[in-house]
């Protein structure tokens, strides 16, 4: 049975202690939290650290709270804690969609949101939801703390703008207005222990015109996607803001920029969706892999973007 090539293991009690150790050992050392990526990476020989610096005993980095107009998530918060959070369920729906289908219960019990972001996989499930929510991240390093938008964090597969010894401390999400909802669709072959073929997150804020008929259609128990889209085309829902992010569509989790010009103030209908999707497909760099072919991924971006608009609208109309 496989052993790890780890010689020393530190369970630090503060961020400063972790940073100092990382400076001391340099490339020989790796940070570890839940370990569900780190240990697998060591077993796969992707990494070969002699020293592991465990962050799990640092107090005060595991929380979900609302404060001064922001939802704040500590980096050591597990996916399971997020999954059980009424605050996330109410206000960051796309993130809830993502954590519910990530790995398995066993993985979610230990895997942390900070780890999912720092691992920077193009398929990281928590990234597209956080991108459409305009999340910021706080990093702590030898020179103190700094914060940056999450979209500036990802540089490539496994690469981030985090410096070697820096630690991800916290994720902050602006509390969305009441007329806004989000959703994430992880397109997979099976429902557990699977990476997405494509992941799509969408955030929608609307100005409701005449929505009575649409609400009735949405309430129908045997609603089909086509019925929903037809009803939407015939109603008057105006878009205040639409944000879109894709997983596995580029070397990084990708936020689609420049959507405002296309969507702001426009009536939500097929015309607008086509323009949004065309822009997304232009910016995406989908490719063939054994998990899915490029043409299929593109096709699913088309399908899922529309479905996610309907899911978001349904969530919005449930609360008006």
């Amino acid at each position, binding site marked *: 049975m496989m052993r790890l090539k780890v010689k020393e293991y530190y369970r630090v009690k503060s961020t400063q202690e972790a940073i100092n150790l990382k400076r001391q050992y340099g490339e020989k050392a790796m940070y570890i939290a839940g370990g569900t990526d780190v240990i697998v990476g060591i077993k796969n020989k992707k990494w070969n650290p002699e020293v592991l610096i465990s962050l799990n005993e640092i107090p005060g980095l595991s929380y979900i709270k609302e404060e001064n107009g922001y939802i704040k998530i500590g980096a050591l918060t597990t996916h399971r804690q997020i999954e059980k959070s009424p605050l996330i369920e109410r206000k960051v729906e796309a993130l809830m969609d993502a954590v519910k289908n990530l790995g398995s*219960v066993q993985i979610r019990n230990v895997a942390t949101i900070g780890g999912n972001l720092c691992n920077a996989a193009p398929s990281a499930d928590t990234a597209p939801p956080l991108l459409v929510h305009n999340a910021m991240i706080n990093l702590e390093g030898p020179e103190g703390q700094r914060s940056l938008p999450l979209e500036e964090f990802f540089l490539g597969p496994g690469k981030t703008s985090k410096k070697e010894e820096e630690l991800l401390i916290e994720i902050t999400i602006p509390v969305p207005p009441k007329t806004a909802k989000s959703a994430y669709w992880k397109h997979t072959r099976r429902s557990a222990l699977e990476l997405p073929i494509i992941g799509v997150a969408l955030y929608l804020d609307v100005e409701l015109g005449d929505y009575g008929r649409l609400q009735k259609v949405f309430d129908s128990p045997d609603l089909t996607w086509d019925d929903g889209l037809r009803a939407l085309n015939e109603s008057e829902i105006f878009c205040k803001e639409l944000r879109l992010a894709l997983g596995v569509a580029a070397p990084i989790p990708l936020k689609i920029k420049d959507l405002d010009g296309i969507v702001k103030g426009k009536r939500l209908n097929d015309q607008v969706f086509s323009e949004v999707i065309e822009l997304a497909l232009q910016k995406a760099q989908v490719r063939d892999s054994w998990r899915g072919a490029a043409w299929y991924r593109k096709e699913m971006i088309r399908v899922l973007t529309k479905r996610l608009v309907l899911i978001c609208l349904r969530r919005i109309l449930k609360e008006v």
Partner: protein
Amino acid sequence: MRYTINFKLNGEEMSTEVDPSWTLLYFLREVLGLKGTKEGCGMGECGACTVQINGKAVLSCIYPVMEIEGKEVWTIEGLAQSSEALHPLQRAFIEHGAIQCGFCTPGMIMSAKALLEENPSPTEEEIKEAIAGNICRCTGYVQIIEAIKYAAEERHGSKE
């Protein structure tokens, strides 16, 4: 380098020396000789190595042994009082034919145990979610789900 760690295993306080190169699974099987916990994929994808840590189902094959310091670990060996006094989940698995080759069974039961402790009356969907990370190649899962349901109902005394 060796480290001394303190933890509880199947209800008993332990203090022992460990090597940081060990996963929890390696420690359980190769050092303590507790072979009930299985190694399947060794990469956190099949659930055969599931144990409980502080009540939660966790994959011991990707869990560093150093992290059990101060924690409570339960393995399949801790469930039965004796061969005549099996845990209700163990009895339910036997009575419902939820075992064929048996390799996934310890992990399956540990996932089910963690579920029932958190949620004593799970729905079928909740049972499926709880064992979604445990792969069984023999049974087709139907009897496993029935066994877990039965154990849950039995706990409530509704089945005599």
